[in-house]
């Protein structure tokens, strides 16, 4: 088997693992009415972890509809005179999806690794947006005791998207609220 084929298969496995983990957590959340309580652990939230340049960033999944590999979005229609970070309009199962490159939006260049790149479909009410990120790492649970208000001065690169910080692996991971891009 060539290295390229092996890499591609690994990516498929990673996609499947993330998708099934996402479905599992989504189902658990629905069964528990959105949040699970535990006296010892506090209220648990599900977070998706993804890479933003070299930084790990988290987002609560409550406004995340799905995670789609970029090639699964139908032909992307470019939008003339739009800012560079607006990649265009895609067609996801008959619904229009405006695609935004998060790196570009935050002034970090462009997402370059299209093999690992994923589109986070975020929604609020009837509005939805496809946000391209470099790589989705995992979906995890975090207690609200580990989530603290974010300090914007520590994350100026996240602009107005910083929502909070979550304690993970002995460090603070910034949490973003991507639905702000819809408003």
């Amino acid at each position, binding site marked *: 088997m060539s290295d390229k084929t092996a890499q591609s298969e690994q990516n498929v496995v990673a996609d499947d693992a993330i998708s099934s983990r996402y479905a599992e957590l989504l189902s658990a959340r629905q069964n528990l009415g959105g949040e699970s309580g535990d006296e010892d652990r506090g209220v648990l939230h599900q977070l998706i972890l993804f890479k933003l340049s070299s930084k790990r960033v988290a987002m609560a999944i409550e406004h995340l509809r799905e995670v789609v590999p970029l090639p699964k979005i*139908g032909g992307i*229609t470019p939008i003339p005179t739009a800012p560079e970070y607006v990649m265009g309009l*895609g067609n996801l199962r008959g619904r229009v999806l405006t695609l935004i490159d998060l790196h570009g939006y935050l002034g970090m260049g462009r997402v370059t690794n299209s093999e690992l790149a994923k589109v986070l479909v975020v929604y609020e009410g009837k509005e939805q947006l496809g946000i391209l990120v470099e790589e989705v790492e995992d979906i995890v649970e975090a207690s609200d005791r580990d989530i603290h208000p974010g300090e914007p001065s520590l994350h100026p690169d996240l602009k107005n998207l910083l929502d909070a910080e979550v304690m993970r692996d002995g460090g603070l991971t910034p949490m973003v609220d991507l639905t702000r891009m819809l408003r």
Partner: protein
Amino acid sequence: MALSDGGRLIDILVVEASGFKVGLLMSEILELLPTEKLQGVKVLDLRHHFNPSIQVGSKKLSSVLLRKSKDQEGVQLLVDRLGDIYSVTPEAIETFPPGVARVIPFWAVITPRAGAGDVVPLMDVPRLLSKATIGGLVR
């Protein structure tokens, strides 16, 4: 505008300019004219607007006369070619989320359900006329 089953259909003309496919509401269009007939009208070259490296004007272009306002003369919009006209239901038109609408000069899109094949952005004509450079010469 056509009427069907008591529901309103919206007519959209798809045009191509500088490699981009965009839609225009037929209600914003006064008439379609070959550029040879242009005399003394203000022009807006959509190709140049989309790609400033393209020179304004050429007699090989197609054009549509846009309604500027009820009482004012129209503005001639120059494009590479005129495409098909689609009659779509309001449901086939989707507006952008506010955060996106602020940064892109389009009013909405027609969806593949409209039959155009691709998602086609619809020009926000009043916004276009207020922002674009009007008055280039047709050569």
